[in-house]
């Protein structure tokens, strides 16, 4: 019997179930619970502007998408340059319902949790189909195959009258227990919904990772010949990875559509795909919590640079052009710096902090 359940030091596992736990100490678990409740409670105490809330909502939607991207690119090692298109598949699933049934149909406004999951499943189907080349292709060639899906997706939407050629298709306001969600509560309401989805998705992936459905992903990343010899079909495993990534992307897409109350092609372009990849890299590929760091870091940086650029343009009107170039410039710079100096991403800093505290109160 372990006598000390709060610190990692001197804490020995006495059963294998014990070792499998997500939170190995009471301290870890308490910190997580406190942090999570803080996330749920703070909007009650602080009045924040809609713009600020929108940024937070955006970050959280990106988190859901990056969880998916991390599965396929981080864990399974398959570079996907079409992730925004998968997110788009989720959003356009809702859009097609809106086009057929009208934007305020009961299905969209009342059964929205169902619609979000349905969009996820749709994303999973498309992910699996796009993942089929992974049965044969590897590395860069596979990346190009996913890029082609991104292109096909954009072209298809742009040329389909059904989807209004990529112009915004509106989605109605949703209903909650208390009736229609009012305009002023919209962003806070979706903050809570997205938060719930993040927690569910996070635990889902965390659980998958400690079972054979998660381990097989790292197996095909590290050595698919050996994975084959271990009795798993490497091709199907890769298709499964794409399917899983598509599922989370689809959910993110549906959340995006509901948050903006509309679906337009400009949110699902190649540029977005590359931004997603950047977030995954900055956060840390192949780690679950990297999916949280990445979007937060990139989006907050983006916001700060925008504010800076505005200020610069205000004081020095002549530098207007420079200021607009500042955003893509810092974005590129951050990625290059991370690739050079911290290819394992922010998640690695977290790992270092954790390893320091692991031995506490002893120094080594």
């Amino acid at each position, binding site marked *: 019997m372990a006598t000390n359940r709060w610190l990692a030091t001197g804490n020995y596992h006495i059963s294998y179930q014990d070792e499998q736990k997500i939170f190995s100490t009471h301290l870890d678990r308490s910190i997580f619970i406190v942090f999570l409740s803080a996330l749920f409670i703070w909007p009650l105490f602080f009045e924040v502007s809609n713009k600020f809330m929108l940024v937070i909502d955006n970050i959280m939607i990106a988190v859901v998408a990056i969880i998916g991207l991390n599965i396929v690119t981080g864990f399974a090692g398959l570079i996907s340059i079409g992730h925004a298109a998968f997110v788009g598949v989720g959003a356009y699933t809702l859009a097609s319902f809106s086009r057929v049934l009208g934007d305020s149909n009961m299905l969209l406004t009342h059964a929205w949790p169902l619609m979000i999951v349905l969009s996820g499943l749709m994303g999973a189907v498309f992910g699996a189909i796009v993942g089929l080349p992974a049965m044969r292709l590897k590395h860069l060639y596979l990346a190009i195959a996913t890029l082609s899906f991104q292109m096909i997706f954009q072209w298809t939407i742009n040329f389909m009258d059904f989807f209004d050629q990529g112009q915004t298709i509106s989605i109605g306001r949703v209903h909650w227990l208390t009736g229609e969600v009012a305009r002023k509560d919209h962003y806070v309401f979706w903050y809570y919904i997205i938060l719930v989805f993040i927690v569910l998705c996070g635990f889902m992936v965390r659980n998958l990772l400690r079972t054979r459905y998660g381990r097989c992903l790292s197996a095909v990343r590290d050595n698919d010949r050996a994975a084959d010899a271990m*009795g798993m079909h490497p091709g199907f495993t890769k298709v499964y990875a794409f399917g899983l990534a598509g599922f989370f992307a689809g959910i993110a897409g549906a959340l995006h559509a509901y948050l903006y109350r509309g679906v337009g092609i400009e949110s699902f372009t190649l540029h977005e795909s590359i931004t997603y990849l950047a977030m995954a890299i900055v956060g840390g590929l192949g780690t679950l919590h990297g999916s949280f760091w990445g979007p937060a870091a990139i989006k907050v940086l983006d916001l700060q640079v925008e504010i800076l650029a505005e200020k610069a343009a205000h004081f020095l009107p002549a530098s207007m052009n420079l200021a607009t170039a500042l955003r893509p410039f810092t974005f590129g710079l951050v990625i290059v710096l991370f690739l050079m100096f911290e290819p394992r991403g922010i998640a690695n800093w977290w790992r270092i902090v954790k390893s320091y505290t692991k031995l506490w109160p002893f120094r080594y």
Partner: protein
Amino acid sequence: MQTLHVSDVTLTFGGLNALSNVNMEIKPGLITSVIGPNGAGKTSLLNCVSGFYHPTKGDITYGAKHLTHSSPHQVTKLGIARAFQNLELFRGLSVLDNLLLARHTNLNYNIFQAIIFFGKAARLEAENRASVEEVIEFMELEPYRKSIVGNLSYGVQKRVEVARALTLAPDLLLLDEPMAGMNIEEKEDVVRFIMDIKQERNTTIVLVEHDLGVVMDISDQIYVLDFGELIGAGTPKDIASNQKVIEAYIGED
């Protein structure tokens, strides 16, 4: 325990015959060695058995099952495990994860049970962990349990490779040069492991090895390949006195 039959197997790459009309019978419960000079086709033969190559002609059967056109994962499910010559480990994962991965097919929970985790998946994972622990103890890998495989020394990595094949709980174990590049002490260790695997775990072993001393000492049956052809078969005694084998190794004058 079943017998592995290799009958008239020919493997052709373009105009080159890697194997030509090779016949073998690998009897259960024995250590069968395959020897031969470099490029004789030993590894090609193992690749044919484990499904990485498919013979151009001929047939491979394990008991009543035909392996000729099977993929590696299908062969694995029949109870045939393989340790590779050039380490094919999951280098980014810990020793523990490498071994847990080998139990992939033994875990029969579905993806929804995996997502919920509590219940069946948790129970099976704990059992899984316990059986992996048994192999870790058997192969004396306790100090390296949580180390990343890519950071371990070559000799230990070789041992992990064998351990991973053992974790599959095979009836037939194919070992491709498990002693290559080792010093005498490490070789003695590996020989001890091989003997233990045969006796305690009741496993048939096919050994491809260059060290003739070891091969002569521990084999029950030896097959000799040269340029893809079988030039000798029999007990170590027969092989030692086989004129063709001596010529292949020492050269004709």
